């Protein structure tokens, strides 16, 4: 065997692999921005799949009638001229209703040049309502839409009649993402009253339902469209030429400064950081506070760093049905055993904001007058003792006779296995041990945990996270006793008739100022009962190319890449 040829071949291969990278980051001019996605977004049609990962893309392609402004977090018009005011009226059937008049912008049009009209809005509502529709996410919202009225003399106007007692009537009627009727129902045959064996309706709805899988070639109203994509690799969005929204000033959703946005799927954080250092990524989100702070400390001249507050909270629900945790005093004692400030500092590099209740700190009705529960082991011991918990057998674990049976204070703590939940559990375990509480940590996948434990209330405590949105909170699903049933969404099985009544008041009050008083009272009562231990709301950790002027927001996903500009251009 002639080694010479082998060595020459190897040398050639190595030489060809030698770094010939030039700085190919197209972030030098805003021709192109390279953005990291953690995973493939899957379906990106918000009518059928309203996911966090999908939102990172669809916010540039699909437009709602109105949305929350990324800075002020108040509703601002997108497809309509202005945010409508409510007025009391009755429907044609004589039913009491609250109505909103939506006037679509004259300039608003679909990407194929057809005008976007009120008929498209009405068509979309019909699509959601259709018995064969897979837009299941929207059905509960539009149940409160009683009827819709179109106007022959003004194709841009629609009046939406809603249930007058529904708190989110305004948000509901403007959050819809219209679909182009001329594409999906050219002959206007869609009939929501049709039977399920109507072949025409089946064919129509199959076509519409399958729109959820569309990526390239979608006819929509947004400033960008997908021009190329490869599953699990990348998606390329390009700015539409002669876009109608360019003429509308001060509307973030209609802007588009970058000609091209390339979303690269990079699951691993280390790989993403390496790519960013080499100029292959211009914007990325990191999970680890350590990675983020390390970059901030050592590469401050290459990157810009942004930490908006995420609409997300970490909390520990306690099963209020369990014989140990049904006691409010025990729950309060456990709340004293976790040093939340220390956890934020130690585990998240100080990048978090402590929370005292179920609502996000950015909400206007967040009750800032409530003092967070302090970390105090002695106080916890006192409370447990006052509730009858003593270490009668001197094994270091408190016990008490419950229903005639000596019960040790032994609790199971479920975690998903993420590093953060594991670390929180370990810290909590150490602290509870000092107070005579034994904590057993069990790791399970989230979907398994839900099925086996949370839905069946066969658990004590769990480390969970909850996402919220800018829209006003409806506490019914998570806090009303109606949902403290197997399979229900009231995870803590919380049951307080006073709070149930408050929740009803909140749901029936449209006026935000009146509702705020109820929200504040609600938070106070939850705080007193401590059905959960509320931890904190983390800050997002974004790293961007230092040449870009990047604005971030609390509104998910935390940024709008279409608003990024080059610093030189300001």
């Amino acid at each position: 065997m002639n080694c010479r040829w082998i060595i020459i071949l190897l040398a050639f291969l190595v030489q060809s692999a030698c770094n010939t990278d030039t700085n190919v980051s197209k972030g030098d001019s805003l021709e192109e921005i390279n953005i990291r996605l953690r995973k493939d977004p899957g379906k990106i049609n918000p009518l059928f799949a309203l996911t966090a990962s999908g939102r990172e893309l669809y916010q540039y392609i699909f437009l709602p009638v109105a949305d929350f402004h990324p800075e002020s977090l108040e509703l601002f018009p997108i497809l309509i001229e202005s945010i409508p005011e409510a007025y009391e009226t009755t429907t044609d059937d004589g039913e009491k209703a609250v109505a909103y008049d939506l006037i679509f912008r004259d300039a608003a049009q679909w990407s194929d040049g057809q005008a976007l009209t009120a008929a498209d809005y009405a068509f979309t509502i019909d699509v959601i309502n259709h018995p064969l529709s897979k837009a299941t996410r929207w059905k509960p919202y539009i149940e409160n839409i009683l009827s819709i009225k179109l106007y022959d003399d003004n194709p841009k106007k629609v009046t939406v009649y809603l249930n007058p007692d529904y708190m989110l009537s305004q948000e509901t009627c403007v959050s819809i993402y219209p679909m182009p009727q001329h594409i999906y129902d050219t002959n206007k045959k869609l009939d929501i009253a049709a039977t399920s064996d109507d072949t025409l309706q089946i064919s129509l709805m199959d076509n519409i339902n399958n729109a959820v899988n569309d990526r390239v070639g979608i006819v929509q109203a947004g400033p960008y469209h997908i021009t190329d994509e490869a599953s699990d690799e990348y998606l390329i969005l390009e700015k539409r030429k002669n876009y109608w929204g360019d003429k509308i000033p001060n509307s973030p959703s209609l802007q588009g400064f970058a000609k091209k946005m390339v979303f690269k799927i990079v699951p691993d954080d280390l790989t993403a950081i390496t790519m960013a250092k080499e100029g292959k990524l211009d914007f990325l989100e990191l999970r680890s506070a350590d990675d983020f702070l390390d970059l901030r400390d050592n590469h401050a001249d290459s990157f810009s760093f942004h930490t908006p507050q995420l609409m997300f909270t970490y909390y520990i629900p306690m099963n209020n049905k369990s014989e140990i945790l049904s006691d409010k005093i025990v729950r309060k004692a456990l709340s004293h055993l976790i040093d939340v400030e220390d956890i934020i500092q130690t585990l998240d590099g100080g990048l978090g904001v402590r929370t005292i209740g179920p609502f996000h700190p950015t909400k206007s009705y967040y009750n800032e007058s409530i003092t967070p529960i302090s970390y105090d082991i002695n106080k916890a011991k006192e409370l447990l003792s006052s509730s009858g918990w003593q270490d009668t057998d001197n094994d270091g674990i408190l016990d008490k006779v419950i229903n005639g049976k000596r019960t040790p204070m032994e609790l199971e703590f479920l975690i998903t296995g993420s590093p953060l939940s594991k670390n929180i559990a370990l810290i909590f375990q150490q602290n509870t041990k000092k107070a005579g509480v034994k904590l057993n940590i069990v790791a399970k996948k989230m979907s398994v945990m839900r099925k086996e434990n949370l839905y069946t209330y066969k658990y004590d405590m769990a480390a969970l996270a909850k996402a919220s949105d800018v829209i006003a909170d409806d506490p019914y699903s998570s806090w009303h006793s109606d949902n403290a049933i197997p399979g229900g969404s009231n995870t803590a099985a919380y049951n307080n008739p006073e709070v149930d009544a408050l929740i009803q008041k909140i749901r029936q009050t449209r006026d935000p100022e009146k509702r705020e008083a109820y929200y504040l009272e609600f938070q106070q009562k939850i705080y007193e009962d401590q059905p959960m231990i509320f931890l904190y709301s983390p800050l997002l950790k974004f790293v961007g190319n230092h040449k870009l002027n990047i604005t971030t927001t609390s509104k998910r996903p935390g940024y709008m890449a279409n608003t990024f500009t080059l610093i030189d251009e300001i």
Partner: protein
Amino acid sequence: MFRYIIKRTLIILPTIWIISVVAFLLSKAVPQDPTISILNNRGISESTNKEYRSVYTELKLNLPNFYFAITPHYYPDNINAISDRIIRTEVNEALKNKYHWQDISQIIESRDYKIGQLSQILRKQHTPVGIYFPKWIWYGSNNQYHNWLFSFFDSTSLIDGKSSLSKVGTALQWTLSITLVDLVLSIFLSFLLGYYFVKNENSRFLKFLNQGLYLFYSIPIFWLATLLVVYLTTDDYGSWTNIFPSVGIDIYPGKSTTYHILHNIDKLLLPILCLTITSLAYSTRFIRRSLSDEMQKPYIQTAYAKGIDREIIIKKHALRNALMPMITIIVSAMANAFAGSLLLEVIFNIPGIGRLLFNSIGHTDWNVVFSIVMVIALVTTVIYLIGDILYAIANPKIRYDA
């Protein structure tokens, strides 16, 4: 031989079928609820019963699992037909406690029944079954497995609606572009090294090389990959270390996967290097031992006695006979090549089959998971058949009886 090949080929079909059944039944044993996963994929984290039932039926999970079932006599004919998640959970619990389905269904259908109360009512009004015996139920072709099997080629990903097979095909191209090159390279280099080890048994250099190979063999591949990425693709530690291109595939819009692979060859060299380094020690040792064993045999001694040069003895006599065990390694390595390397694909950001399989399992995208499993099963059985044929070619003494 021809008859043997035909027989083995015919056995492939039932083998694949058994694998498909096992894979399908295992997916049913996974505690994740696929309906909940699909609802999550659609952005519905807290679904109503109506939403759940709608997706449950859409996924045809209300059908029986298989063509038949053998259940205790007090079980319902098809428990999957209960589309309400909460009721189905309660019913399962009641059946575990051996309450008869007739009693359970009476309670559920009664007006007084409220969710969460089934166990209480059963305890008060009925007694569990004492002795039970099995019953056989035949469902025919209207079952989940049958639907899946016969829509295999048309199946689409539950995540993004794309054809499962096309996703698998694309991912496989990326994986094979690394693993096959690694296979060829590591076999070639291990033959070379094995030959030199045997030829120069007492060489001090080769002893050091041997230890070096063991060192790389003992390093976990993901750690090695991380080190290579951190130290050799950036200039954080000096520009002289920035040898290899940075990770991440360059994008060529509108071009095929093959085009992408060919124009990203430089990006694939580091993962290939990583794979080769870690597998070289094992293959080299195997060949070395195989060759060494051959060199001890009497016919080699005869060759020496005849005055034939050592190099010629190794090349012309020993090497050929040492091929037999090597076929085993090559065949199993080829089969493994199709499975990909998840960790490597994540670290080097290569959209290969390992990453696709992991993501699909995580999202309960069973359509894609089954496609991957079936493709790998088929390829593996064919490769092992080829291995058997190669054995016969390498050693004419081997004959297969029909």
